[in-house]
């Protein structure tokens, strides 16, 4: 699977417009912890940074000015409407067959498929099995799939990571029987 090469210029991240804001060491650790426990839509904020290197502490101020994220996000939504599609956070819904609830995650929080799948496994308490380029996922009843912009259901991992992040609309963890015929276009 592709490793996401962390080029600062193309990196997808959260932050207020025009700033390199909000990446303190501890926030990165928080980010890791959070994704493991399950992420909800509003836990976006500046804490969901995933930059490779942290700018010097002095310039980055977490939680300043002291405005709650619920206020910041609303205003952010308005600004993002005029931004490019990739935007700041790439939020997609994740459902799993048989689970009575949905989750929302921010794809820009992950560096690649490995991280994403690990997070999903923990979030929904299952395992994906091994990925084979031709045959898809083996060794598990669960198959991670996604719906792309064209409305097709694809297997997670088939396309390069950046392309996946751009084209993914929602995720669905299917149970084996339903997953046949998915992502055959490998």
């Amino acid at each position, binding site marked *: 699977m592709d490793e996401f090469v962390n080029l600062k210029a193309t990196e997808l991240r959260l932050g207020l417009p025009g700033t390199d804001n909000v990446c303190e060491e501890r926030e990165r650790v928080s980010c890791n912890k959070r994704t493991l426990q399950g992420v909800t839509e509003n836990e976006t904020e500046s*804490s969901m940074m995933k930059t490779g290197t942290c700018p010097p502490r002095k310039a980055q101020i977490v939680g300043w000015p*002291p405005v*709650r994220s619920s*206020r910041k996000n609303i205003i952010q939504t308005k600004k993002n409407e005029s931004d490019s599609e990739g935007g700041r956070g790439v939020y997609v819904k994740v459902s799993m067959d048989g689970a009575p609830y*949905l989750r929302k995650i921010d794809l820009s929080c992950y560096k690649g498929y490995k991280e994403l799948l690990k997070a999903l496994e923990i979030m929904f308490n299952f395992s994906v099995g091994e990925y084979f380029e031709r045959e898809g996922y083996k060794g598990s009843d669960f198959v991670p799939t996604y719906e792309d912009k064209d409305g097709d259901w694809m297997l997670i991992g088939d396309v390069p990571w950046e392309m996946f992040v751009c084209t993914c609309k929602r995720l669905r963890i299917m149970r084996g029987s339903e997953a046949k015929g998915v992502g055959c276009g490998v």
Partner: protein
Amino acid sequence: MSEDDEDQSPASDLRSQRPCSPNKSRNCISSSQTFPDHVLENVLENVLQFLDSRCDRNAASLVCKLWWKVEGLTRSEVFIGNCYALSPARLTQRFKRVRSLLLKGKPRFADFNLMPADWGANFAPWVSTMAKAYPWLEKVDLKRMFVTDDDLALLAESFPGFKELILVCCEGFGTSGIAVVANKCRKLKVLDLIESDVTDDEVDWVSCFPEDVTCLESLAFDCVEAPINFKALEALVGRSPLLRKLRLNRFVSLEEVHRLLLLGAPQLTSLGTGSFSRGDQSQQEPPDYAAAFRSCKSVVCLSGFRELMPEYLPAILPVCANLTSLNFSYANISPDMFKPIIHNCHKLQIFWALDSICDEGLQAVAATCKELRELRIFPFDPREDTEGPVSELGLQAISEGCRKLESLLYFCQHMTNAALIAMSHNCPELTVFRLCIMGRLRPDHVTGKAMDEGFGAIVKNCKKLTRLAVSGLLTDQAFRYMGEYGKLIRTLSVAFAGDSDMALRHVLEGCPRLQKLEIRDSPFGDVALRSGMHRYYNMRFVWMSACRLTMGCCKDVARAMPNLVVEVIGSDDDDVNRDYVETLYMYRSLDGPRKDAPQFVTIL
């Protein structure tokens, strides 16, 4: 609107938790020579029932053991300012007939990402203990607690008479939890979700309310970031004859609000208008929104405007003359749009807005709103280096026009001492003064001096001041003023201020009523921390992050004060600076350190 509304009466019920020594009973009426105890108990019960105020009850419970016991039997409303100050078991042991609980969890700085997630403040142990002890529980009001869907389900199942659920700045639950509450709490009067983080579980919770006529009086879901079933909402409003307060989220369009108002406008006293923009029907002729608002004869509180289409704002004009509370803080309104509206709001007492209204808009407020008690101006663009549409000019105008002002929250880029001094003279009723100059360490932008004199004047002249938040360039002198004059201050927020330990010492030694102290990024160290040891048992909490504390000193404090829980919160895994304390959060506790602390919390 309850963003950081702190109640006025002093601290928690904690002091009166400890029973009086038996010696004291000598002084009390229950000299068992004259009357048998149980008769006295009955008499006391009947008398104490009339005591409502928390302070009065706390005082009464200290008289003697009997009074302590009877007060515990008759207290129906319990306030717990820090959920870790005591265990749920202690609550149920002391108070036997609780019908209403107000519980607060995380410290306020957690709202600004200064605390990692999963720190705690779980509602679960409280609800499970109360489920067994208080089957008649009617009201739960939580602030900054972590509440799960399971907790809500347990609540809905355990309390058949449950009437009021208020969740302020809470998280951990979703629309599925709300659905269970809606469905099972048949006597529900109040369901208020305020500034909370509610997960979208794609559950149609509005349809889950029972199909008969409901008891609903207040329904607030403006913070819920999920679409709702409007038809179900319409039907719900139609069968809720007692509904007075309705606060819609941004997924409700103007047309839909229009329809709701046609159903039940005359009874509503408080309306959250949702998005205040049109849905997809932009082709059709818009309905007469003004007519719908005209029928809102009782509306005194207006909020919402989450995605405002400004051309429709004039529709609210018919209600402006009656408004006592107006919340525009999610609407990017320019001065030109704003002035015609505010010009009619003569009765306004509470006003929240974005700084997009500019100094010009504030001048208009000052000219019209002579009854103003509370003003909150939030930044549209919350960054440090922007232009800043509001300044000392707006503040000066407000101070001159709104003499009855009691509470202020003001975000700006620039400020002057002169404006603060003026306000301190013009607004003697101020009890809450929170100024956030967004540029850190910014001096008076006219004189170039520190903001010491301005804040000094505030603490000196506003004799009723109980809550203060400071910003800008501040030296130790500002804190000297606080210590000298801030005798009633209960809550103090400090960020990027002060020069040395002396600053904090002034405050700890000079402010006898200080209850809640939150400090970040200020040069206060061990000497300062030690200087407050005589105070910490009388405070609700102390928060210090990114200061200059060492682990050694914190350990000393913990050792010297056994009933103080000293938490050191870190998220760095590196041991390089193990002596440096990233975040200190300490609070008194009757039941020792908590057992649910996550890995990144060290309790000394």
